[in-house]
């Protein structure tokens, strides 16, 4: 983030009354008094944050392995208690921890544990109830319950951690519910999945753009990255391969890639530029192999592809230097 962006962000937060004059001056004063100490503290805080999440993931693994190893020996109540019970317990613990400002980071780790363990717990519970947990109906139910839980939590606490879970569970619900609608209907083939991925990528990028105007700006980079990766990946897949190629998507794809690369300048997003460049390279390789390998001969096609890749590399570096650094 450069200075202009930072000041713009401060102005935006001040307009929303999310930051006070004292907080801004206090942060400025702290920066001018002891910079190196602060950097050290930030570094240590970063490591402790990572350790919180690694710890959370290990707890989840422990519970999952416990259930897996003793599946036949455990009774139904024990199975539910050790999975769904643990997930709910972690959620309740996090809700208590979040009230103390000092323990807020630890609360995020507990929310992380609950977000990992609760899906496992719901699957175990539905399995014990005799439902087919692999069915789209149960998948929709599990993801719907989780989305509602964390959506309500977001409206109560307004924390970024809930937004991450909501994006994940929302995506899960979208895929499982559309699967439930479609089933094995012969009018829907693999392209339907590709269109769903395309939409998901577009939604992620739009959400990323929305978050630039809010205090959840930290999510923008990741959402832009995943969004453009999924969007362009699906668009490329929809082009398919000769003789089953889809002319529309093969023709539209370069336009989409250049659109993404030039949007990277407007949005100041390195993810847009990087993935745009990578997908343009993949597209050139694909089109060359698909159409020109036979007519031009493989060696000449390789030469032209190589030159194309060099041109993209040059464009990528130029745009990055000029607009994004």
């Amino acid at each position, binding site marked *: 983030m450069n200075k202009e962006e930072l000041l713009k962000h401060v102005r935006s937060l001040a307009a929303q009354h999310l930051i006070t004059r004292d907080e801004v001056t206090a942060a400025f004063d702290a920066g001018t008094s002891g910079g190196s100490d602060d950097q050290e503290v930030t570094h240590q805080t970063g490591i402790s944050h990572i350790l919180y999440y690694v710890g959370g993931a290990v707890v989840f693994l422990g519970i999952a392995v416990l259930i897996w190893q003793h599946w036949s020996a455990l009774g139904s109540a024990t199975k539910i208690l050790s999975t769904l019970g643990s997930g709910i317990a972690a959620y309740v613990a996090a809700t208590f921890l979040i009230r103390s400002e000092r323990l807020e980071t630890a609360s995020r780790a507990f929310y992380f544990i609950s977000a990992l363990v609760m899906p496992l717990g719901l699957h175990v519970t539905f399995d014990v109830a005799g439902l087919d947990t692999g069915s789209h109906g149960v998948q929709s139910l599990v993801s719907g319950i989780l989305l509602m839980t964390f959506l309500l939590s977001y409206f109560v606490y307004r924390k970024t951690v809930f937004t991450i879970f909501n994006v994940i569970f929302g995506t899960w619900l979208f895929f499982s519910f559309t*699967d439930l609608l479609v089933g094995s209907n012969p009018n829907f083939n693999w392209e339907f999945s590709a269109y769903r991925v395309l939409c998901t990528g577009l939604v992620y990028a739009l959400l990323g*753009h929305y978050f630039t105007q809010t205090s959840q700006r930290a999510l923008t980079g990741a959402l832009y990255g995943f969004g453009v990766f999924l969007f362009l990946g699906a668009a490329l897949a929809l082009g398919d391969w000769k003789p089953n190629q889809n002319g529309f998507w093969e023709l539209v794809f370069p336009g989409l890639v250049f659109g993404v690369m030039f949007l990277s300048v407007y949005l100041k997003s390195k993810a847009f530029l990087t993935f745009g460049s990578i997908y343009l390279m993949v597209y050139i390789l694909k089109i060359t192999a698909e159409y020109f390998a036979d007519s031009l001969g493989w060696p000449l096609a390789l030469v032209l592809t190589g030159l194309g890749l060099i041109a993209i590399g040059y464009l990528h570096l130029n745009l990055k230097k000029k607009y994004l650094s």
Partner: protein
Amino acid sequence: MKPQKNISLIIGLAIPFLMIVLVAASIYLPGLFAPQPTVNFLYVTDDNYYQGHAYVVEQGKLTKREVKYPEHFTPGVTRFFVHDVSANDSKEVSFGEAQQLHLDANVKSSDGYEVVYGSAEYGFFPLLFSGDRDHNSMYLKGHSASKKLKLQTLNDGRYYYSRDRARFLGWIR
């Protein structure tokens, strides 16, 4: 919330809802406008040995061919069913009764429908199949609509795909 400021959020949340509505409409709407199927059909279950079939339709009649099975192999009990497309229900008939029927072995019926196998389900991640048990169900498809068929398919665990459990033989004239 100012609409202009939140336009990306509004569009972002609207896209999945819109897609769900479009998918539901594309599944259910054509069924409302498509003409009702009228031509019943004959199908057979458990007539499959390494893609070889004992029962085929020749010159509009059901006939039996000789299939050489290995000594140790015991073929399953083949059954024939007439499917009433308007009631979506099947009735078992004997081989003799099935032989009396005048059959049209064309893929498409005279009223524009065909019996097709359902597409593979791709699940949450496009490369993974879902856990649904009715993998590759059978459908009556035509006039942009499709209807899931309730067939008497054999499901004793020997065949995973429905195409190995039940096979369309011909439209009944």
